[in-house]
């Protein structure tokens, strides 16, 4: 009985996915081969948007900034999250130590940026507290690094939480055995705990990789990609070209490139992880 209707059960979800994900993606891919201002019908121009991509100095800056975001996201929120988790997971009252790191996670990306804008602004709270006269969001790539630190402040808690769950769920026997054999501290972590946590680390790093590649909201609210496009990421370039400059075709080409890069990076990374485990 169930078998006869199985397609019926799946159909609503399949239709939603097809309508809300695949159809817009195919439409974007089509637009990337056109000139389109959002009003007049799109004009077919072949691969011209893609050739323009490789000549555009702004795209080079966006790619550099996106790379900083990807590497930074994997090193800072993930690395520090792991550190906080390892230092606190078996402590009595460890949850209280982790709580301050968790609270900022309640903020949305845009909300986070609104909170930090007056802090990082020239003449803002950070300038007053540090006794310096620096516009943190002005010069590249320092402005990207400043925003990355803000991002770390928010993301640290959730990464810590994921690692704590991982640490609490790994089997205790191999750790006990290693301890009996005299392993402790760094050696115990490096040779016993870390390998046991590998599947979870693969997921956390994979999520960080994708989050780094699609960085948008925090940059858009804090700097709008400026000054002079020097803090743009690929996602910001995509948005600006599409909605600010009304170059929907070119913006779509950036979107297609970003999708290919994100898909390829995730595929290669996950394939490597699966092969390794």
């Amino acid at each position, binding site marked *: 009985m169930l078998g006869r209707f199985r*397609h019926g059960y799946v159909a609503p979800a399949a239709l939603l996915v097809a309508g809300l994900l695949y159809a817009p993606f195919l439409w974007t891919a089509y637009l990337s081969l056109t000139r389109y201002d959002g009003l*007049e019908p799109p004009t077919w121009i072949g691969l011209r948007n893609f050739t323009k991509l490789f000549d555009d100095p702004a795209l080079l800056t966006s790619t550099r900034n996106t790379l900083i975001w990807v590497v930074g996201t994997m090193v800072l929120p993930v690395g520090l999250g792991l550190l906080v988790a390892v230092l606190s997971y078996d402590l009595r009252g460890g949850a209280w130590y982790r709580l301050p790191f968790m609270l900022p996670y309640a903020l949305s990306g845009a909300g986070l940026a609104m909170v930090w804008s007056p802090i990082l602004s020239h003449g803002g709270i950070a300038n007053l507290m540090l006794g310096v006269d620096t516009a943190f969001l002005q010069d590249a790539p320092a402005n990207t690094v400043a925003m990355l630190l803000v991002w770390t402040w928010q993301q640290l808690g959730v990464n810590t939480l994921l690692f704590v769950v991982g640490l609490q769920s790994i089997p205790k026997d191999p750790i006990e055995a290693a301890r009996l054999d005299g392993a402790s501290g760094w050696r115990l972590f490096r040779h016993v705990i870390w390998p046991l946590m590998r599947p979870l680390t693969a997921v956390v790093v994979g999520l960080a990789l994708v989050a780094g590649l699609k960085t948008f909201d925090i940059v858009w609210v804090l700097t709008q990609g400026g*000054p*002079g496009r020097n803090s743009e990421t690929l996602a910001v370039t995509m948005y*600006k070209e599409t909605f600010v*400059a*009304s170059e929907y075709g070119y913006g779509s080409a950036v979107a297609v490139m970003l999708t290919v890069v994100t898909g390829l990076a995730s595929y290669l990374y996950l394939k490597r992880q699966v092969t390794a485990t």
Partner: protein
Amino acid sequence: MFRSRVVTLGVAALVLAACGGNGADAPQEKKTELTLYNDKGAWTKYFEEMGAASKQSIGLSIKPTGYTDSAQYQAFIKASFRTDVKPDLFTWQTGGMLEQIVKQKQVADTSAIWQEAIKAGDLSKDLLPYYTIGGKQYCVPMNVAYWGMFYNKRIFDKYDLKPPETWDDLVKTADTLKQNDVKAFYHTSVLFSFVWFEQLLAGTDPDLYDRLSTGRAKYTDPGVVQVMEKWKQLIDAGYFINPGDKTDPADVLKNGKAAMVSSGSWFNTSMTQRDLKAGEDYDFFVIPNLNPALPKTSMIFESGPLCSLTKAADPEAGTKYLKWWTTAEAQEKWATSRGDVSANPKVEIDDKALGAVTKDAGSGKYRLVNRYFEATPPPVLTAALDGFSKFVTQPGSYKEVLETIQQAADEYWSTQ
């Protein structure tokens, strides 16, 4: 198996039909409340007040939806041309942006409203060109604004400074302030990065400004380069606050972070919101020309349209509303609540300095120059805003900046 697929398709079709809008032949709706979409989120309160007034006067109220991100707003309005979700009324920009949407043949023709309003003295003929495309008028003025310098009167009084009459006076004023560790001018690297460029160019060579806006001059022409060099000199002299300061310009003026903010007369609304009093806490002067040989003082002018669509749910109600909007009764309320000037010459405002400017502007004392934001075609504007944003943080980059803007201009004008 086949039957189950047919059932599935049937259900899906029903769901989609339920999600769809009204059919094309649905009877036209008579509305008593009109949606008003705008990118002036901070003005919601004033739009609501207008809605209450119009309800009493013509039986139509408005429901404002204010966006704060203009890019998102414009994308929504453009998308509405292709869907059934259409605003009854919406705000827009004059210049290339208005031309773009008028081409879609959905913006309601307001020629009759204009003719009547000019005849009744409710609108000035001077505004016509900004709203005329292909010999017809579209939309009505939602607001008009004259640009000049707002200054902190308490700081000026403290150092015994008077509103400058000439450019040299203005520079002397900036010098006096600098000697007293007060930054003279506000500028920013976000969005309004073009303000000093347009002011300096319009005050040096307004004809070149017009030619530049219409693609008949280049950003790399010597006249434009000289303006950038002048701007750089002013920045290098230390007159400006740091462009990375994210403080709202109204607070910059209120707190005395800078003594002067160049802005449109709508800045008065921000002053009103901060309980500041014109003539006591702050005041306004017309910025003198950089080039004293010009016959008239150049004044930046802007007008933002309020539009309706022919394919909206009740286009007649939209037209009725726009007609009411231009009347002295509506404009009196609109101008008074925001403390701003009005497009209706019959409306006088309390602010003496702005009132005088409006009167003088109406009598042809100034050469009105269309604001850069509206005068420049959108693709060139985007490149220019980014360029000026880079320039204010790295003034030495002006030649590279002008070349980048010119590249965008070449690309745009080659397709026109």
